[in-house]
């Protein structure tokens, strides 16, 4: 970047102009562009979800025919997974926050960072191309041999997912190197904010698992074009092999989605409780444990696929191991509230919603890990509800919380607090109304991906659709008021929530290289030093005697 580093202007104001934005190497601008792209994709994916839900309001034809319905649920899944949830927290918010929390001027490889964003754009365009060419109807899982068979626009969508994979690898690689090399001398691993632990664990999975998705999609491509038998049984291939490859990536991908959410939740819970996080090391270790275990459980997606009973036994046992670090985190988060001074501002409302929704998502996962129960529940609405509790109820709610948490820092503006609280309530109520009934109809045998259904399920589908509409309206209002506040919101102070991590020591919004001079590292999660300045909605650091703040303890 040739631009002058003006220490007085924020990253939003310095070097204005579209050209400077598009070629920027500043992690915050890249994060901001990611964020707007992701919010756009969220609205698109949400629109597909609403079309699916409205179609299911009554059995048989409601608004669209079978083929369109199949395309809608496929596009909903593909857009939400590949364009929204996987890049949501790491690429948009992580990009914004990670270097600042390290006290660093930028990520280790700014150009790689920008290229990751453009790969995301290319991937997004390819997915849109497949929509324009008539959409895809394979489900986001692209299971063979159906995906080799279908007449719909699978090729651009597969290429899109392939390229999005590289975008994810680039971000992961960048974050790994940044955390290793840009961590200040006096910030040991255990003085890192938990958000950074989570991003580190996520980056590990992104770098190690995503290449397998790339290879798999490439093989699919080769098979479709060159008719080399890999997955297609008529060519001598094995369709179950595809499922192994696919889930070898896509199971870690589930943790790529949830682990960063756990990181931001840890930050918000401690900040709004005004209390040190409980069990720091256990939360940190459990993020890494989840990253490791996530590689060992892919076979639990395939208990009835025809894989051997021995494999099923092993995968079931390993799957339970994932439950333990998740449980540890929930207990620690809950304990953090004890004896705190809990402030129910919007990010905290989302964090508490997360705590409850993640608990439901996790506990219903136990049903599915039990082999015999999974045989009954596999590919029913129970599974649909379970993974929405994890991916949406947990990850997306955490994303929304984190977005509100860091929005003042990113945009320099406050959002309308009261409206935001109402919307967070709408998200919570709408979400539960959408997905709780799905647990029941799934247990009663309602298969997923059904355009038509039997009359005994009607009431559950109708409740679910009403919930989805409440959820859709709430999310839409959130996106609208965030855009509105970008220009019109009240100016944000430096530290509106009284956070103790480094980003709250940086100017609001941060200047080009974040800190005009190298910052002192404050004591992590020590809230005694901060005093609320209620007139300005700001928290100010008490001048402390001695150098306690900068030394830490090794």
């Amino acid at each position, binding site marked *: 970047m040739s631009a002058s580093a003006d220490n007085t202007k924020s990253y939003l104001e310095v070097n204005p102009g579209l050209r400077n934005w598009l070629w920027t190497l500043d992690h915050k601008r890249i994060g901001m562009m990611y964020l707007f792209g992701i919010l756009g994709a969220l609205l698109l994916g949400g629109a597909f979800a609403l079309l699916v839900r409205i179609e299911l309001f009554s059995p048989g034809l409601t608004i669209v025919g079978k083929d369109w319905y199949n395309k809608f649920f496929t596009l909903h899944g593909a857009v939400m997974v590949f364009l929204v949830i996987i890049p949501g927290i790491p690429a948009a918010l992580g990009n914004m926050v990670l270097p600042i929390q390290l006290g660093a001027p930028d990520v280790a490889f700014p150009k790689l960072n920008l290229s990751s964003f453009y790969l995301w754009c290319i991937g997004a365009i390819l997915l849109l191309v497949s929509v324009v060419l008539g959409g895809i109807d394979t489900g986001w899982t692209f299971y063979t041999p159906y995906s080799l068979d279908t007449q719909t626009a699978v090729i651009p969508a597969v290429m899109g997912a392939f390229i999005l994979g590289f975008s994810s690898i680039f971000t992961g690689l960048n974050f790994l190197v940044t955390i290793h090399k840009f961590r200040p001398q006096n910030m040991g691993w255990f003085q890192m904010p938990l958000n950074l632990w989570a991003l580190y664990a996520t980056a590990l999975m992104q770098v190690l698992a995503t290449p397998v998705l790339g290879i798999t999609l490439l093989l699919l491509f080769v098979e479709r074009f060159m008719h080399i038998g890999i997955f297609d049984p008529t060519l001598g291939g094995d369709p179950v092999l595809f499922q192994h490859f696919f889930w070898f990536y896509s199971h870690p991908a589930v943790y790529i989605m949830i682990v960063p959410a756990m990181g931001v939740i840890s930050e918000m819970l401690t900040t709004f409780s005004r209390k040190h996080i409980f*069990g720091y090391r256990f939360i940190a270790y459990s993020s890494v444990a989840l990253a490791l275990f996530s590689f060992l459980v892919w076979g639990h997606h395939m208990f009835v696929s025809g894989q051997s009973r021995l494999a099923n036994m092993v995968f079931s046992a390993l799957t339970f191991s994932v439950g333990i670090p998740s449980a540890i985190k929930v207990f620690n988060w809950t304990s953090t509230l004890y004896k705190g001074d809990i402030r129910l501002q919007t990010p905290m409302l989302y964090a508490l919603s997360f705590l409850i929704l993640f608990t439901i998502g996790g506990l219903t996962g136990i049903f599915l890990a039990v082999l015999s129960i999974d045989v009954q529940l596999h590919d*029913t609405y129970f599974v649909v509800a379970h993974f929405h509790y994890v991916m949406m109820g947990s990850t997306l709610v955490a994303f929304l919380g984190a977005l509100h948490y860091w929005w003042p820092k990113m945009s320099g503006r406050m959002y309308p607090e009261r409206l935001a609280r109402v919307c967070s309530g709408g998200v919570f109520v709408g979400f539960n109304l959408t997905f709780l009934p799905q647990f029941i109809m799934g247990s009663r045998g309602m298969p997923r991906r059904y355009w038509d259904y039997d009359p005994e399920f009607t009431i559950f589908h109708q409740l679910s659709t009403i919930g989805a509409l409440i959820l859709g309206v709430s999310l839409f209002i959130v996106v609208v008021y965030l855009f509105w506040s970008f220009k019109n919101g009240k100016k944000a102070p430096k530290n509106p929530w009284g956070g103790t991590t480094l980003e709250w020591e940086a100017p609001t919004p941060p200047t080009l290289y974040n800190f005009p001079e190298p910052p002192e590292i404050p004591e992590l999660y020590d809230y005694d030093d901060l005093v609320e300045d209620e007139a300005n909605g700001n928290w100010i650091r008490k001048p402390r005697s001695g150098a306690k703040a900068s030394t830490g303890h090794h």
Partner: protein
Amino acid sequence: MKASVQKSLAVLGLVLVLGLGGAAAQPAAPSAEQPPAPAPAATDPAAPAAPTPPAAPTPGEPDTKAAAAAPATGAAPAAEPPKEKAWWEKKAEEKYTYHGNYWLPPSASTTADGSDTLFIAVLAMSAFFFFAITGAVIYLVIRYRHRPGHKAEPSAAHSDALEITWTIIPTIICVLLFVYGWRSYMDMTAIPETRPENQIAVTARKWSWSFRYYNGVEDNVLHVPVNQPVKLIMTSQDVLHSFFVPVFRQKMDVLPRRYTYTWFYPTKPGVYRLYCTEYCGTDHSLMKTKVVVHQAGDYEKFLAESFQAKNNVSGKDLGMLVYEKKGCIGCHTLDGRPLIGPSFKGTWDTDVKLADGSTVKFDATYVHTAIVSPQAQARPGFPPSMPVTGLSEKEIDGVIELIKSLK
């Protein structure tokens, strides 16, 4: 006794976990249906004895449903004076036996009970942890909420004793659940000795099921005897499908060019739903049929009489049978409307255009080719989704006669 414990646990779970209205309407119907304390109805024969559920929304609806779901069917009897249906066909048209208890559908196989007990146990465990955690969160938020004069109090930032406790307790629960789950899974998948009459060959294709019995008869309804193990040998003609009967709690994917197996031991006569649960394209949601669990002795009667009936049909009647039972009906109509494939009506002895631009006479040879080698002389405007169905020459002749009759 066990049943009542399960029942109360399930009610507890339902009422508490689903505090949000809506579901409240649901338990009402089944509990009306099964009066509070029927003399230890632990053994099942009581249930099928009174299969007509009171004022529940179920009765009648499957019929309207069937009519709505398959408009193609409507036309079929119109062409011909309706033939007397065999008793087993009438049986398959009876109402579904559906009286789920609160959360789960009825259980109608031996292995279902094992998995249901586990389900209830996990539900109770989940309900406990859910309410413990949610209760703690709500209590702590109210107790320690920010208000004038309230400050955070100093407290420990970690406690090894607590961490170890809440690592070990979930670990023990997980180990137990794994072991029990695995054991009941072994019960569900270890296929016992099955007599040959109870081994049924299942063929799945887009978008219909076909069941071939010991006597060579094929039907698209699954007929099985009560109180005997039944084994299914399954394969697919195209993409992945999955065999799922909720009341048996049994599910298994069906793969092309490979056999997969499943089994069950039905315990209650009745008519139940059978679904495809692996996404397979356009009509995935219509790829469902019925399981008829016959009373003792009826299955043997079915085998004997359907064999007779099959050998007695030929020509157009056989064609109609093939049309209805082997999946033609999913894509072809008899009334001239194109569906996924062209209609059988109105093309006999005409010249039809092919996808490559040429024309060909629609005659017996054409029909034969179209069945044996579906894409060889494909017609434009239809997706290439016609499978190779493996009809016998006699059956093909029957289809030819059927089409001929629909000039």
